[in-house]
C-alpha cells in the first residue's frame, strides 16, 4: 500500500449505475497505468488509499443533479459536502470514508472524489445517460492526475 497514486472505484456492478465508479476506475487505471481498487465500506476505502500520496475516488451519486452529470470534489481544497449523496447500499459511503480518514490522520495529500449521477440503481449494466458520461468521467480522472 505504498503506491504514489491509486484510483478507487466504489460501487456494485450488479446494481445498475451504482457500478459506474468501477467502470470509470478500470478504464482510467488502464490508460494511466495506475493501480485500481474496488471497494465498499469506509474502512475499506481508507484502506484502499492506504498511504498513497494521491488518491482519486469515483462513486455514483444519487439525487445530486441530472443523470450523467460528473462532479469533481477536491477534498483538500474544497469543502467536501458532509452528506455526499453516495449511492452506497450500506449507508456508509465516501463521505464517511473521508471523515474517517481525517479522524485517523490518514488522508492522502491529494484526494479527489469524482461523482457521476446515476439514473437507475437496479439491474445489470449502466443506463444510457450514465454510459454516455463514462468518457467524461475518465477524462476528469486523467485531468486530475495531470494537474497534480
Amino acid at each position, binding site marked *: 500500500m505504498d503506491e504514489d497514486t491509486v484510483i478507487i472505484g466504489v460501487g456494485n456492478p450488479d446494481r445498475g449505475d451504482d457500478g459506474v465508479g468501477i467502470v470509470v476506475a478500470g478504464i482510467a487505471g488502464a490508460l494511466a497505468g495506475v493501480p485500481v481498487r474496488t471497494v465498499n465500506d*469506509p474502512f475499506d476505502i481508507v484502506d484502499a488509499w492506504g498511504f498513497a500520496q494521491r488518491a482519486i475516488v469515483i462513486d455514483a451519486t444519487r439525487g445530486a443533479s441530472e443523470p450523467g452529470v460528473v462532479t469533481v470534489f477536491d477534498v483538500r481544497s474544497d469543502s467536501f459536502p458532509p452528506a455526499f449523496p453516495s449511492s452506497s447500499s450500506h449507508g456508509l459511503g465516501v463521505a464517511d470514508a473521508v471523515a474517517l480518514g481525517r479522524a485517523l490522520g490518514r488522508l492522502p495529500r491529494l484526494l479527489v472524489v469524482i461523482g457521476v449521477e446515476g439514473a437507475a440503481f437496479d439491474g445489470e449494466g449502466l443506463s444510457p445517460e450514465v454510459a454516455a458520461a463514462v468518457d467524461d468521467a475518465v477524462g476528469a480522472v486523467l485531468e486530475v492526475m495531470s494537474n497534480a
Partner: protein
Amino acid sequence: MPSESRRIGVEYISRVEGEGSLRVAVRDGRVEECEFGIFEPPRFFEAFMRGRRFTEAPDITARICGICPVAYQMSSVQAMESACGVTIDPAIDELRTLLYCGEWIESHVLHMYLLHAPDFLGYESGIALAADHPAEVGRGLRLKQTGNALVSALGGREIHPVSMRVGGFHRVPTRKEIEPLIPRLEQAREDAMATVDWVATLPMPEADRDDEYVALAADDHYAIHHGRIRSTRGMDIAVEEWNDYFVEEHVPRSTSLHSHIRDRGLYQVGPLARFNLSEELLRPVALEAAHRVGLRAPITNPFRSIVVRAVETLHAVDLALDILDRYQRPARPYVAVPPVAGTGHGASEAPRGLLYHRYEIDGDGRIIAAQIVPPTAQNQGSIEADLLHLVERNLDKDDAHLQHLLEQSIRNYDPCISCSVHFLRLEVDRG
C-alpha cells in the same frame, strides 16, 4: 385522571441492506406494543433458485449478503455435497475454515468498531468515535484489513468471493502466495487481544434475560461449519432434522419469516449462543482472554455480545494462524460431485449466527426446492423480547435515552439492518 400514553415509533429508512422499524406503545405504565418490523422487500431467492444447476447455488446465494457471503457459500456447498453423498478432502475442508475465519474477522471488527462501540461510548457514529479514539479505531482498521486480505487470498476477492465451489475450491493458493499473511496475522493477534481488553471496559447496560441459545456445536472444536445443532436447553439434533424442530412463519409486521422452536418458542443464535455452548473449546489464547475479562458461560446479557465478538475474533485469528503455519498446497482443489437426486442440508455459523440451507435436487442436478434460514430471521423474536424487557425496566428514562438504549439493543444482534438503524428517526406521541 387521564391515562398517560407514550408511543415510540421509528418508521423507515430506505436502504437496500435492510429496512426495519421499531414501534413501542406504553399506556399507564404498561407496555402495550413492542414490535421490531422488517419491511425490506422480499427477494425471492428461494424461488428463483428453482430450475438452476446445483453447482450455481454457492454463487447465487453469496449475493444475499455482502457482509457474510462465505457463510452462504459454505452452507450451500455443504448441502449440495451432502445431497450427492460426497465427502471433500480434509485439507480442502480446512482451507474453507480458513476462509471462514477471514469472514468472522472482517464482519466482527466492522460491527464492533464502526457500528456498536459508538453506542456504548455515546458517539453518534464510528467516525465520531475515531476522532476521539484514533488509536483504537486505527487498530480496528488494521484488523479488518487482515480479515479482508485473508478472504481475498482464498476467495479471489474481498467481497463476494468467487473461489468456492461444490466439491472444494476452483483454485487453491500456493504456500508462497499465502505466506505474507502470517506476519499480518501475528500483528492481528496482538490487535485482537487488545480489542478484547478494550471492549471489556465499555459500560454495559443491565439486561440479563435468559433465552434458549442455539448454535452448531461439536465435541472437539468451537464449531464454525461442522457439528450438530445444540441448544442450552438440551436440544441435540443433526442438521438434517432442522424442520422437525424449527418452524418458520409469517407475521404481519415483517417480510422476513420469524422462526421458533416447535412447541417451545423463542430462541436466539449468534455469538452468545456459540459461546454459551462451546466456551471451553475456544482456542486457549481466546479462552484465557475471555476469562481475563470476566467472561464465562452462561452469558445472558445481550449487550455483552460485543465482548464475545472480540473473543471470537481472537479465536479466528489464532485458528487462521495455526492453519496457515501448517499449510501445504492440497494435491487437488476439488473432488468431482456428480449430481444425485435427493435432499441435502447444510449449516454453518455466520458471524451473526446459525445459517441453515436445504435443497432438493433432481438426477440432472436441477434445484427443485430451496430453503434458506438466515440468522437475523431467527433472532427477530428475541430482539423483540429484549426490547420489551428493556422498555419495562426503563420507563423512567426520557424518550431520547430510551430510543438510544433500544437501538443499541437491536445492534447487539448485528442484524443486517444494523447500518439502517443507525439513522432511525424517532416519533413520540404522548397521547
